[in-house]
């Protein structure tokens, strides 16, 4: 499956933005197996781009196509299916169920379309240093711990594209590297494409294409 974006620009951005950006107003295509790095300073529309690609917002001009399907034509059930099978995301604002435990948060996602057995949750959590947090409510975990929960959650389903919106903003270098390593392994297993949007370049992400937003 290919992801194509054509002449994409948020409705609230000037046309002038097109000339300064590698992405806004351009025709691009991303294929499975590619590692895409998008460097984007604050206010350049990084979160908007991730939301557009995930289908959460439609306030843009241009088009986004998965295969030959324009996501503006998707219905609610199409999106549900797409998010279950083809695309996964780590949001900048994490979006966990605060009253549920870490384990429950992960199981809710895993059972939707299990790529891994439930034992894998513990393994991944331990690998990222939150193995002892599985029984704690998400809301009492630190932001860094919550960020790792969100990362693990994104890896429990099958996907062709993994969208990352500043996934390491609350992690130190050591933890970031561990998380990156895990994500790269998981993407490789699925031959998936990672689209990684961050404020600046990160050395331990082996990108194949680099774009400035």
């Amino acid at each position: 499956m290919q992801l194509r974006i054509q002449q994409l620009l948020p409705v609230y951005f000037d046309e002038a933005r097109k000339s300064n950006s590698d992405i806004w107003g351009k025709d691009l295509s991303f294929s499975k197996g590619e590692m895409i790095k998008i460097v984007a300073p604050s206010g350049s529309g990084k979160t908007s781009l991730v939301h557009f690609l995930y289908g959460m917002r439609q306030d843009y001009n241009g088009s986004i196509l998965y295969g030959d399907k324009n996501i503006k034509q998707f219905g609610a059930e199409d999106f549900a299916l797409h998010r279950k099978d083809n695309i996964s995301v780590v949001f900048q604002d994490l979006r966990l169920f605060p009253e549920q435990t870490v384990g429950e948060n992960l199981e809710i996602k895993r059972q939707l379309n299990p790529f891994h057995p439930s034992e894998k949750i513990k393994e991944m959590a331990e690998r990222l240093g939150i193995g002892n947090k599985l029984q704690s409510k998400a809301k009492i975990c630190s932001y860094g711990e919550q960020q790792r929960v969100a990362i693990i959650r994104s890896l429990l389903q099958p996907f062709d594209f993994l969208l990352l919106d500043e996934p390491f903003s609350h992690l130190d270098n050591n933890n970031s590297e561990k998380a990156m390593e895990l994500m790269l392994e998981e993407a490789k297993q699925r031959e998936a494409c990672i689209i990684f949007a961050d404020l600046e370049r990160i050395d331990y992400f082996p990108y194949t294409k680099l774009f400035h937003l």
Partner: protein
Amino acid sequence: MALSYKTIKPLLLTGTNAASRWFSYIGLGIGVLLLLCSLQMFINIQQLLTRNSIRKNGSDFVSIAKNITNENMGKDNRFSSADIAELKAQPFIEDAAPLIPNLFRVQASAGQMVNFSSDIFIEALNNNFIDTVPPTFTWVENQPTLPVIFSSEFLEMYNVFAPSWELPQLSPATATNVAISLHCEGKLGERIFIARIVAFSDRVNSILVPENFLEWANKTLEGQDSTKSSRVFIKTKDANNSDLLKFLDQKDYRVNKDKTMFGRSKQILQGIITGLGVFGLLVILLALMLFSFYLQLVIARSKDNLQLLLTLGYSPAWLSQNMAKQFMPVYIFVVLTGLALTQVMQWSFHHFVMYDRPELSSFVDWVVIAAAILLIILSIITNYRLVKRLLYRMF
């Protein structure tokens, strides 16, 4: 592996509104009970009155007469053949037949057993209008015995005054064994017949003899044809038909009110029961509305969680199906409880009020059970559609 709702269930914040949830359950229960009870009572009345009424083959038989007033007292107030033809022509009247009276004098005496003698009247009516016609109700010329159909009410009246006249009271069986001597005397001659009661009629208040006998006797003893009568029996689909009543009022014909009383009280009773049923429906509607408000509140409270589930890739159709399923056992429980209470009501009504009359059953009618099933299906569908609509709106 099947997707489990168990992990999702705690995300619905339901606990804080227990009172409004219970109010809607109770409201629903009361509504269901009212509706099912009214339906059952409606059926009961239908069964009781259909089997007890004067209807025969689905028609009402009523006798009509011209109203006798001070103004028309001296005139001929009998029905002519033209009057009867006019009656027959009306769309709401299926058939009409005159009650032909005797034109000669009739004296009855019962011999030794019942020492009684009196002038009486006899009448004849088309057999199709009589409720009880035994095969023995026939007469051929020169036959000395005469079969008679006697009004049940007349027998009751006789039994009321018999003791004060020192006459024996008679059961219907004994009455049929009494040989009554009928002394018929007209301008052209006199004859004596031995009459026997062959049946009792609940419908016709008269002493009925076979039609051909009266025609023969009127002609032979009095020299007249039996063309005019004071009473006419009509056969109609519904004695309470407003067109019929209007027509009779216009013509100033008097209806035997007793015969339509059943119909009228049935109408009133059914009206009341229908009113109760409609009230029950309104209560159900109100309860469902209350429940839908409760559901909307639950969904509004759980909005963030539900929205996140949709973001993660949960299907809105699956979510609404499972959310609606949550309330299914409660709906089924409420309606089945209503049905069980209706059954208790029906049993008590049949046993204690109706003293186990055979026309009714101690069990609820199948229509009531079907209505209960329909209610369950209806509430589940309404529920599912509401949740689905709210979830899709969130997307």
